[in-house]
């Protein structure tokens, strides 16, 4: 029975070791903000942070995350970068259907954490693993820039 630290809370969970974190979060813990998109790390909708770094939870077995700090979209606003990104997302009005945006925001917050002033090229490189079918890419670029410039 793995014990996970999710958004600052320790939880002992009765799940198989090979179960991907995505389904643990969504179906067992009930944190549905993290999304299922492709199941094979091609679209980024399931992105969460593991010790502050972005991972694709759909291919990450729960055994790999024991003892590490898991942060999901529900708590990313409690980090400085996450709050900046969410704020910029609202300001720029990035979102359309919104389904991919949890993953976009998690990738963007991680980018800002590691690179406080990314260029367009760096933004594209960091965000190209996150698909948005509504096509909000221009606004994602603009919002990351705005977040990076905010105090």
């Amino acid at each position: 029975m793995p014990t996970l630290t999710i958004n600052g809370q320790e939880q002992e969970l009765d799940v198989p070791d090979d179960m991907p974190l995505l389904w643990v979060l969504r179906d067992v813990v009930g944190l549905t903000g993290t999304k299922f998109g492709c199941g094979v790390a091609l679209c980024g909708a399931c992105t969460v942070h593991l010790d502050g770094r972005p991972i694709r939870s759909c291919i990450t077995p729960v055994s790999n995350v024991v003892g590490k700090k898991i942060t999901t979209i529900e708590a990313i606003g409690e980090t400085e970068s996450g709050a900046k990104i969410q704020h910029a997302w609202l300001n720029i009005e990035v979102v359309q259907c919104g389904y991919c945006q949890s993953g976009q925001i998690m990738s963007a917050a991680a980018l800002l954490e590691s690179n406080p002033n990314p260029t367009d090229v760096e933004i594209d490189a960091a965000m190209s693993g996150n698909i948005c079918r509504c096509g909000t890419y221009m606004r994602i670029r603009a919002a990351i820039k705005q977040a990076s410039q905010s105090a």
Partner: protein
Amino acid sequence: MLKQIDDEERKALSRRTFLVTSAAAGGGLLLGVYLPRSIGAKAQVADEALSPNAFVRIRPDDTITLIMPQVEMGQGTYTSMSMLIAEELEVDLAKVSLEAAPASDKLYANPLLGFQVTGGSTSVPGFWEPLRRAGATARIMLIQAAATQWNVDPASCKAEKGEVISPTGERLNYGALVDAAAKLPVPDKVALKDPKDFTLIGTPAKRLDTPEKVNGKARFGIDAMIPGMKFATVAACPVFGGKLKSVDDSKAMAIKGVRQVVKIDNAVAVVGDHMWAAMQGLSALDIEWDDGPNANVTTESIVEQMARASQNEGVVARSDGDFAKAIPGAAKRIDAVYEMPFLAHAAMEPMNCTVHVTKDSCEIWVGIQVVSRAQATAAQVTGLPPEKIQVHNHLLGGGFGRRLDVDGVTQAVAIAKQVDGPVKIVWSREEDIQHDVYRPYYYDRFTAGFDEQDRLVAYHHRVTASSILARWAPPAFVNGLDEDAVNGAAKEMPYDIPNILVDYVRDEPPGLTTGWWRGVGPTHNIFVVESFIDELAAATKKDPVEFRRSLLGKQPRVLGVLNLAAEKAAWGTSLPEGVGRGVSVQFAMGTYLSQVAEVEVSKEGEVKVRRVVCAVDCGQIVNPDTIVAQMEGGIIFGLGAALWSEVTLEGGRVKQHNFNDYRVLRINEAPQIEVHLVKNTEAPGGIGEPGTIGIAPAMANAIFAVTGKRIRKLPIKDQLRPA
């Protein structure tokens, strides 16, 4: 006040002949009176609320709820619909809460389509007047109630920000007036604001659905969490039309967390404690399929059949002058064939549906564009009367037309019938791509003729395609003509040519179902028409913008957007080597649009769209930033499809699986997009789809400008790679 539709509006709406036909055939609305059946009907609500129609509910505690007839799938309709009501109700958007409408064609029929449906970019055009009237009706009753209490003339009172104000400055909030207002008769005639007095419509409003979409709280259909719910995933026969022959589930049932294997006619589902158990269970099944009659279908066999069919004369969709007489005398003749592929939708939220069937009820949690059809199919599958089927509609993680079909609901209810308790059925991405309802394959033949002076005198366009309407709205398929298949090619084709013939050959591909895809008919027709027109400009050595202008003398609004886009894109100015511009114009969904794409083609044949300039005239603007966002997103959607996307078949099976082989546009491939809005007070046009429609031809025409190669078949993929 009922508004008789005038000629201009009729023209703007005429693009939807099929929709009107469909509505009329259904016995519902006629265009003569622009009034949906729902207005005046009352939703069932608690007595203490003021609810003069199905869209507004105000409670004594001053909570104001707007009931959304249209579904939110990213297009911003929850905000636009709310703005229409709030403008006349005189409330702040910040004060309203929203609720998804339940299934009811009676209360929530789309005025342009005749039943409860969100699609075809019809929300603002259809609800433009009804929702303003819904807001005004409530406001008038509240003012009347306040005036009675104050013993003053209602005409001397006004409503503002959720309060009624007396001539002497007394104020009562709406909640305080609910009891009295609810006892008043609902007025059948209400005066609407003069557009010059709008304070909300036409101003940029923040989207109401966004805050919960940035913090993980938004609930899409796939996020439904019902106490006691099980999780399931499904495999349908990989060949369309095939059946489930047998399944050995012994290995699956041995997996921890797997609870049940459910067999239906053409699919098998594994039910478990969570999606992971269900997924593992499904892959452990030993399934034998009966492939049925389509086991040998390939894309090539379908296209061969279409090419043959396209030799036949079609049903005439437009005939001006006499093409057959004019073409033999032409001094110059141009022929071309265009093809467009089957496409999947690949919305980010995979198909899913949560269902709880009991002996005498059925509850459904889903995100669907056709709420009442979801109810109807569940009634059919369960044998329960429709009123026993409750559909809780959710936010849609993308629709793009996929959720205009209820095949996923039908299947989910059939599975849930065999499950004790609620069950959430989620398709894998592979299942989603391989069991889509696909955008049709299109096969188009063109012939054009010029006279001695290089004047375009004869034009023939034959569309060969399946008919979506014949399947989806049979009453709208009249005399063998699918109005959608020729939408954008026939009466909306804007160019002034003396002899025009447009005809339609219906050809149904074996082995798959075709359906709506963002931009519907025009996404196909504008690509082929605008590409062919570009060919004609090149054939007579004319500038593509000048050539179009010369044929658009009778189309001021088309000309207007063309000129605006050309100006903003600096058409005609020089560009670096390897970069070119292409243009397209369109009239679709009541909206006029022109795009100029600036495209770079490398020596290796790689296409990079650097910049897109888009000029939009959609008449009356409701939420300007939503229009810009829809253009940006629509362009990205159309661009990815034109560059990369196609669904192909082999052995009756779809060959694509996931985003690795069904490629869509990513951020590093996204161009800069500039949107310029034309401001006027014409009837509002649709905005959810037009952006998608014109980008493929603008890009393809730019590729021609750079390389001299004409793209006559989509997707572009590696067509430009040197041999």
